[in-house]
């Protein structure tokens, strides 16, 4: 018996403020052996984080471990005193949280925080512990392992910080490592390096690990066994290969079905016949204060079509939407809405112009005024743009609700009474209330579970067919964009690097950055990570970080095909290739990556 952790019949209860306790985890049993990685997967609210915390004998405020046994290294930790349990954490078991940025103290140097736990447990003096930590940095492939500990958290990139977080967790040589969605907040290109580093260090130290995630493709890379959860109950458990290839339970199968195929494998929408553009943004340069986010971006959205804007966080996707909506004033360039030049600021645009172009924000939770009823949220644009009042306004609100597949009775509710998916539908309905020609969708599905997100995408499609509305669909999810958009624009560091019909962008020849993005999307196949992490592209990409406003090609510092003397000096112009594709790269057409 070499199980590090054995959980028997765990029950955890939680209590909403002012309410009584309701079960969150309903009798889950699991075990993790030495050197084994167990993945907990499920939708949000399935209790996977709660179980992972409970394996340290911890419950969030408002929750309590109501029953069951938690055996760690042969001791039932629920029978220990709180003080003894405290001594376990950061010694025998440690925890890596989702957001490293929120877990590091911004006022202390990284090295000091990494050795904090072992120092507290008296595992050695600061000098030896620092030496061990530097050793860990090296194993985690961090750049400048000798000096990175002297930096402050804001001085390193997000991917590096997440790896430093792992170093912090490993610094005490734990027997059990808990990783709670450690790569969810990262970009796909960063995710690879972090995943690889995690996997290697777990193998290297022979640590048992619990990996919590909702991303099946990630699970396929790191886990030995998978435990599927739904509403706090175990649905299915088995070796990774069996769960992925031969799921027994219906729920597991539905989870598998919700995973979208890799971007180059989907059926692309055929770009419909060229229509007059409803949005025509020409040579946009914009930013905040001294910072320039977008440089020389030109995008057209033809009527009744979908233009996908993809790129990693910080590349200027949302800024582009804000500039088009007039929320962030542009510095240079011109925006035409429905053929007419639109003023840069929203205050100077007439209502007719505003009506044509509506924006939908990412976070449905914060985009709806919590103190207004749904009827008022939807009714206001009707009144504002169309002058509808009283009975007519009420009827139209009902129609809008039905349009987004919600019952009419929702008009009397407050946003707080709705689920995430329902809120996002209201958010859409508010944009539709203006009867717009185009809707700017800023990551509208990113905060939703896969199944719910798929429903919202279906709704967007049907609305497009019914109403002839166009979308500028901003997302970092390549698979969704690939299957939904007619045309795709790839942004990198505030510049357009490639654009064209969806099919052309997602098939060769690629811009080197597009190639990197595509190859970084995790595939649900074991062994994919090893294959991709060792390619020259991935190595070059993890060596540099995004520099906004760089001279020359912004991607030059992370590109394997870089032409010294040219790429770092001259900004490549967008040049037209056959098939309506445009690529901003100095490479000859034949030399562009083609696989």
């Amino acid at each position, binding site marked *: 018996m070499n199980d590090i952790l054995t959980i028997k019949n765990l029950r955890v209860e939680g*209590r*909403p*403020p*002012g309410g009584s306790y309701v079960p969150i985890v309903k009798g889950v049993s699991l075990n993790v052996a030495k050197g084994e990685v167990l993945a907990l997967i499920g939708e*949000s*609210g399935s209790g996977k984080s709660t179980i992972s915390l409970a394996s340290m004998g911890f419950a969030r405020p408002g929750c309590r471990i109501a029953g069951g046994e938690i055996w760690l290294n042969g001791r039932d930790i629920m029978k220990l005193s709180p003080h003894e349990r405290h001594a376990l954490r950061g010694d025998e078991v440690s925890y890596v949280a989702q957001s490293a940025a929120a877990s590091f103290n911004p006022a202390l140097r990284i090295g000091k925080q990494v050795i904090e736990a072992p120092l507290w447990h008296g595992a050695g003096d600061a000098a030896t512990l620092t030496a061990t930590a530097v050793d860990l940095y090296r194993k985690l492939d961090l750049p400048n392992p000798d000096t990175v500990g002297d930096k402050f958290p804001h001085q390193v990139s997000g991917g590096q910080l997440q790896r430093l977080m792992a170093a912090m967790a490993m610094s005490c040589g734990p027997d059990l490592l808990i990783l709670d969605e450690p790569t969810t907040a990262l970009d796909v290109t960063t995710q690879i390096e972090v995943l690889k580093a995690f996997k290697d260090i777990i193998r290297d130290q022979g640590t048992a690990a619990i990996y919590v995630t909702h991303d099946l493709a990630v699970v396929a890379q790191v886990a030995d066994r998978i435990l599927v959860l739904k509403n706090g109950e175990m649905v299915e458990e088995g070796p990774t290969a069996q769960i992925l290839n031969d799921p027994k339970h219906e729920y597991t199968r539905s989870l598998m079905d919700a995973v979208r195929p890799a971007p180059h494998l989907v059926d692309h929408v055929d770009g419909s016949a060229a229509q007059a553009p409803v949005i025509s943004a020409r040579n946009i340069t914009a930013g905040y204060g001294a910072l320039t986010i977008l440089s020389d971006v030109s995008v057209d959205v033809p009527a009744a079509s979908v233009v996908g804007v993809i790129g990693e966080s910080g590349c200027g996707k949302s800024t582009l939407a804000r500039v088009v*909506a*007039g*929320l962030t004033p542009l510095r240079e360039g011109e925006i035409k809405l429905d053929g007419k030049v639109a003023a840069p600021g*929203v*205050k100077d*645009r007439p*209502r007719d112009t*505003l009506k044509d172009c*509506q*924006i939908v*924000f*990412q*976070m449905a939770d*914060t*985009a*709806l*005024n*919590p*103190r*207004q009823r749904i009827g008022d949220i939807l009714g*206001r*644009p009707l009144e*504002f743009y169309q002058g509808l009042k009283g009975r007519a306004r009420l009827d139209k609100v009902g129609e809008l609700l039905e349009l987004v*597949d919600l019952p009419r009775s929702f008009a009397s*509710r*407050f946003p*707080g*009474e*709705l*689920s*995430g*998916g*329902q809120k996002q539908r209201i958010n859409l309905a*508010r944009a539709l209330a*203006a009867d717009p020609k185009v809707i700017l969708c800023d990551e509208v599905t990113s905060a939703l*579970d896969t*199944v*719910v997100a798929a*429903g919202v995408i279906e709704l967007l499609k049907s609305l497009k067919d019914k109403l002839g509305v166009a979308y500028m669909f901003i997302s970092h999810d390549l698979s969704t964009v690939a299957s939904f958009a007619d045309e795709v624009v790839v942004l990198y560091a505030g510049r357009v690097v490639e654009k064209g019909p969806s099919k052309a962008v997602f098939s060769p020849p690629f811009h080197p950055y597009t190639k990197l993005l595509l190859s970084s999307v995790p595939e649900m196949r074991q062994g994919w990570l090893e294959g991709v992490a060792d390619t020259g592209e991935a190595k070059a990409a993890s060596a540099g970080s995004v520099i906004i406003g760089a001279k020359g090609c912004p991607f030059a510092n992370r590109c394997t095909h870089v032409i010294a003397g040219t790429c770092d000096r001259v900004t490549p112009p967008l040049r037209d290739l056959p098939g309506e594709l445009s690529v901003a790269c100095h490479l000859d057409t034949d030399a562009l990556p083609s696989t």
Partner: protein
Amino acid sequence: MSDATEIAKPRASVFAGLRLTWTATIAGSVLLFWLVLALFGPWIAPHGEAEIISGTTFAPVGEGGLLGTDKLGRDVFSRLIYGVRTTLLLALITTVISFAFGVTLGFAAANLKGWFDIVVSRIVEAFMAFPSTLLALVVIGAFGTSITVLVLTVGLVLSTSVFRVSRALGYDIGVMDFVEAARARGEGTWWILTREILPNSMAPLIAEFGLRFTFSILFLSGLSFLGLGVQEPAADWGLMVQENVGGLFLGSSAALIPAACIASLTVSMNLLVDWFQQRQQGETVLEKIDQ
């Protein structure tokens, strides 16, 4: 569609679903008691506000009036009942004035930003740097003691902290997505301030109102005690403490009773504000301990 169906409680207004706790019940009853006395005082009080009922000054409790007499032989009980009107009314007016100033300027600063914000904020900070009692002494000294000057001065002094709170709230809520959505729709400043930002800052503003109200009572009582507030023969609790403080050496409680009344008013208001604030977060501290 498998939208999760986790439904939160409806929140019609900031007052919806507020369950009372025993502290809130007691505090509320005390405040209600004083409010009733303030409204119906003249019909309840056995004697007039400035009526001398006895030749004995500083008569003890029970002799010559329910709660004794003061330094001129007036009925302490009657003056207490008349005093609650002055105290509550003045506190209410000053707090309303401070909110009218503070919230308007604070929201304007948060929304207009730039120069307006910088100038107003610096002026407010200059006011705050000045000890408030000293400031009031100077102003009242310069303009003379009248109720108008008193109310305006105290209102102005209190408005500085209201300004800070509402400016912070305005900034916080002003960058939220639903406000951005309203801006993108083309709504004007007035709509954004009154329909989007104000309703969402009601809870902290109501709590702040309670706190400022308490401060105002204390501040006004303090000024009356210094002889700069309400003038005799009108009755005011702070003034009553000052009038009768000499009686303490003669064993009279005429100064202690109004002081205790001031305390009951402010403590109750604080308890009520605490309860309201904690209830807005869901649970009060006492309830959390019980669980």
